[in-house]
């Protein structure tokens, strides 16, 4: 498959701004499952403070890319740079303290925990009391709990879902559950946010709200957005990378990528109209 002209141009661009705190860059990443190539020499970047869309047909390797960056998959070749620092071999549980948050396609909310508790787990902080302190019920442990509760409530209020704090996620409308999963990711104040299909299953109004939210976050963090809904991508992204069969086939501003011949061949016409039904199939249970 041809790498388009803009793709090649954007792929080689590495300015100093690209390596700022919270930026993500992958270089020549390759992942194979046996004979199946999931990612083939993928290079792309999410510059600090930008919203970058990653699009492509089903099975193009978008989620595999996220899985590599978050340490669930080991790449056979290539480098992952976060804020200019190599993070190959990072373990998933280390992301939180590195300042990387990721949402899941199926949301992955804990159904046996209230909304508030879900967000409190996301709000872990480096200085936390140890096991003995928690066991013996020391006031240090109580204060820590109070801090977490405060952080979580603030985040819920910020997203306008504080009234659901004491409910269980399973009984809430899907749109609210999405907001809860966003709250859980945002409460840790990440420098890099990886969003896996945040718009799937949302109504048009909710997608507009999501776009507004993402734009308001841009000052605080870099965002990588895997998404099928092109309306959201066009609305918020500065730059888009298009994956197909594990390769980057185009990169650039969304309006240019949209007109790219390779992209229309590979992509358009197939996934333009994902429906609410598909989004609900994504949700667990």
């Amino acid at each position, binding site marked *: 498959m041809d790498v388009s002209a803009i793709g090649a141009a954007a792929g080689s661009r590495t300015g100093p701004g690209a390596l700022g705190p919270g930026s993500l860059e992958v270089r020549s990443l390759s992942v194979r499952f046996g004979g199946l190539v999931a990612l083939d020499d993928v290079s792309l970047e999410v510059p600090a403070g930008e919203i970058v869309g990653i699009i492509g047909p089903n099975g193009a390797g978008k989620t595999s890319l996220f899985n590599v960056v*978050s340490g*669930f998959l080991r790449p056979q070749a290539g480098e992952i740079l976060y804020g200019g620092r190599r993070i190959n071999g990072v*373990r*998933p*549980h*280390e*992301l*939180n*303290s590195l300042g990387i*948050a*990721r949402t*899941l396609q199926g949301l*992955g*909310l*804990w*159904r*046996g*925990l209230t909304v508030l*508790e879900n967000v*409190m*787990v*996301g709000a*872990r902080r480096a200085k*936390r009391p140890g*096991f003995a302190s*928690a*066991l*013996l*019920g020391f006031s240090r*442990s109580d204060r*820590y*709990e109070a801090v*977490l509760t405060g952080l979580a409530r603030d985040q819920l209020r910020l997203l306008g879902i504080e009234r659901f704090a004491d*409910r*269980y996620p399973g*009984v809430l409308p899907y749109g609210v559950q999405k907001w809860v999963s966003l709250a*859980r990711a945002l409460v*840790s104040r990440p420098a890099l946010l990886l969003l896996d299909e945040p718009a799937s299953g949302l109504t048009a109004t909710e997608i507009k709200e999501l776009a507004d939210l993402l734009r308001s976050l841009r000052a605080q963090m870099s965002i990588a957005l895997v998404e099928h809904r092109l309306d959201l991508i066009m609305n918020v992204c500065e730059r888009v990378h298009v994956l197909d069969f594990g390769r980057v086939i185009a990169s650039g501003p969304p309006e240019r990528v949209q007109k790219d011949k390779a992209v229309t061949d590979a992509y358009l016409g197939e996934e333009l109209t994902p429906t609410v039904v598909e989004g609900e199939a994504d949700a667990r249970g």
Partner: protein
Amino acid sequence: MLGVGFLLVAALVVWAIDPFDPFLVYQLSSVCYFAIGAAGLTVLTGLNGQLSLGHGALMGIGAYTTAVVLKAHTDLNPALVMGTATLVTAVASIIVGAAAARLRGPYLAGATLGLAVGLPGVAVRFSNIFGGDAGTSIPALVPPDALSSIAPEVWLTWIGLIPTVITFVLLANLVRTRYGRDFRAIREDEVASALNGIRVARTQVLAFVLSGACAGLAGSLLGYTSNLAAPGSFPLTLSLLLLAAVVIGGLGTLPGAVWGALVVVFVPSWISSLNDTVHLPSAVRDQLPLALFGAVFVVAMLAFPHGIQGGVVRLWQFRASRRRPGAQEQAADL
């Protein structure tokens, strides 16, 4: 607050039983060790989602540690003995827990089942240390001279309540902090847990060790109660009975562990005494208690799918909702 409440109730219970019914007193000691063991298991299985069929064997480690320690130092303070038993079992649980953290569902059940079946064999194999099939005796706890008017069994119940209350206070503290949330988060979704900074395997081992420590303490108390650590005291049925107590009491709730302990101790004896009052052919009479016990469990689980504690909570909310409209919906969330 919760701890003070437990202490008050415990003191009340002891005061109420002081008027000496040796059998009742013995049963209350049994409730103590069952409650401790069930509390540990409910944290592991109910909160963290790891099924263990081997906690009876872990109780055996606690009881044998108690016996071996007391053989060497007959007059050692029971607090020290129980502490040692708890610690030794906790250390043993690190090994089991590390293996368990790699296993899921039926595989974990199978592995812990192997523990329950295999561990009593170890006691038989090393009979010079553990006394073989006959087991090792554990000297009875006797009250100090100043309190010599108290019968040893009653004294044992007094003593047994102390570790029970301590265990419940500590676990209640723990489950309402981030550890409790992390345990539950892992039960629900491991991938999401890791992405939110929880060290999944390490936390699973921690849960296993915590619950193993409880089993060790329970086993030590069982040893003191029965004055014996023998392979026959820790059959597979003990593990299953613990699990039954946890489930019927209300999986994942600490009060449920107490309910469950009360059920597995008192219901069989009620059934037995009931059985003795009716005249049935001996072939039927001998098997009836077990069958009735099973039937009670089935009926109870049908009536209270979330265990006794679940039923209590529901009843509480139902009462509340009649006073305050709108609370009904909250109850439905559970």
